[in-house]
């Protein structure tokens, strides 16, 4: 039995399947990025779903629209809690899938937001690899722009963080610094 005749086909099948996954994800990313719905449109959609009776449950086995609405509200509550608690607010976020083969996915992220009164704009690549128990994540090509960029302490800190891709350190430090900064600002205002 000559298995090598199958090999070429099987290899092509695998490479096609991976390419299809990548293309589908790129298309999804594109759709997500180019779409925008206002808060009113989202609220309208939530009310529309609310009125759909369960007898009209979609036949493809999707969750009932009111489940979707409940889950969305729960996630939004979590998100708004986190933003309030940590002081980190994300204003805009886009991601693009650059590579996807086997267990490896590379996505490029652009993220803007602020932590208390300090705003930031980040770009980075995130490499995720699926192994047996979990997904490992590594940051590369980190680039950070901050409004308070003239402050030499801040710019030294930012270059060090960019050099090592230390995104987590950036956020942890930004969070404490911004809180301290905010506290100081409030204290000064109090004494004005």
């Amino acid at each position, binding site marked *: 039995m000559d298995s090598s005749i199958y090999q070429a086909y099987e290899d092509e099948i695998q490479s*096609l399947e991976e390419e*299809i996954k990548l293309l589908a994800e790129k298309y999804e990313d594109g759709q997500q990025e*180019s779409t925008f719905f206002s808060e009113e449109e*989202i609220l309208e959609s939530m009310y529309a779903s609310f009125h759909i009776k369960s007898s009209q449950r979609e036949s493809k086995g999707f969750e009932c629209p009111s489940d979707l609405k409940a889950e969305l509200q729960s*996630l939004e509550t979590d998100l708004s809690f986190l933003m309030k608690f940590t002081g980190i607010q994300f204003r805009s*976020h886009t991601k693009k899938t650059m590579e996807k083969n086997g267990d490896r996915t590379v996505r490029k992220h652009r993220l803007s937001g602020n932590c208390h009164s300090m705003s930031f704009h980040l770009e980075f690549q995130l490499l995720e690899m699926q192994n047996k128990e979990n997904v490992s994540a590594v940051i*590369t090509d980190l680039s950070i722009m901050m409004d308070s960029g003239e402050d030499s302490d801040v710019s030294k800190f930012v270059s060090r963080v960019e050099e090592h*891709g230390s995104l*987590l350190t950036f956020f942890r430090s930004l969070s404490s610094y911004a809180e301290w900064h905010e506290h100081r600002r409030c204290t000064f205002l109090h004494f004005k």
Partner: protein
Amino acid sequence: GILAHLEMLERRAQQVAMEEGEAQKQEEKLERLKARVQELRLQRDELRAKLDLQQKQQLGQEGAVLEVEPPSARAVLDWKMKSVKAMLELFYLTGISGKLTKRGVCFCISTAYEGTYLDSYYLDLLIKAQVEIHHHSIPVFIPLEKMAKKYLQTDIRRFLCVLSDHLNAYVGRRYQADQLQQHFSDQIEGTIQRNSLCNLLVFNYNVSSKSQTFPFKVRLVYGDLCCSLPTEVIVASTPDAPASLTQTAAAHSDLFRRMALHKAFRSFCPAEESMD
């Protein structure tokens, strides 16, 4: 005789039938594979065309876009859901994320060494008259109780920051020792001895001088549990080592105080690192 001959003919017929059966199976499998390839190629080409059109539309190149029916409520909610989920995932990258529960909140503390994310730990808090830790996955050697006593009731955020500092430092120390063991195993004698908190490391490594190798003994103590650099470093050469090596030992000692372990090793034996 005839019987033997008949038996032989029968065996041969069976063999031919079997071979024909095999050949047919092979052909069928080949046909299936070919069909699958065609199917996938078609799917791939359709996606490519779709993506191409999408990119043209986004660049405003594709003339007047036919106004399709307004998006369904479902589509709008799906879009919003994706957007919210993506932001929640981002919080994971910031080091503190979580979700509200019926009785409080379950926090997730993620750790990283530079750009590599490592373990994450959860802390399930009950918010009642007092804040209580319901469940957690914090290792026993992290002084959780002490931190909780000091901060949990008055400043949850501060509590999480201090806990995060401890966890990140622990994971950072562990990562350095792992990297050293993994990439410089040729230089290290045996294994690196460490305690569970990874704030005490003891190991021997080889240093060459004039084509002879000498062992150095190292003892590293990380006195600050929130730090991933040691506070005490002892690097000692053996008595029979040449005098020049005491200088090397001092230089290495200084490096270990200032730099991550695996980076220090990389700086004094760049050629020896085994890439993985």
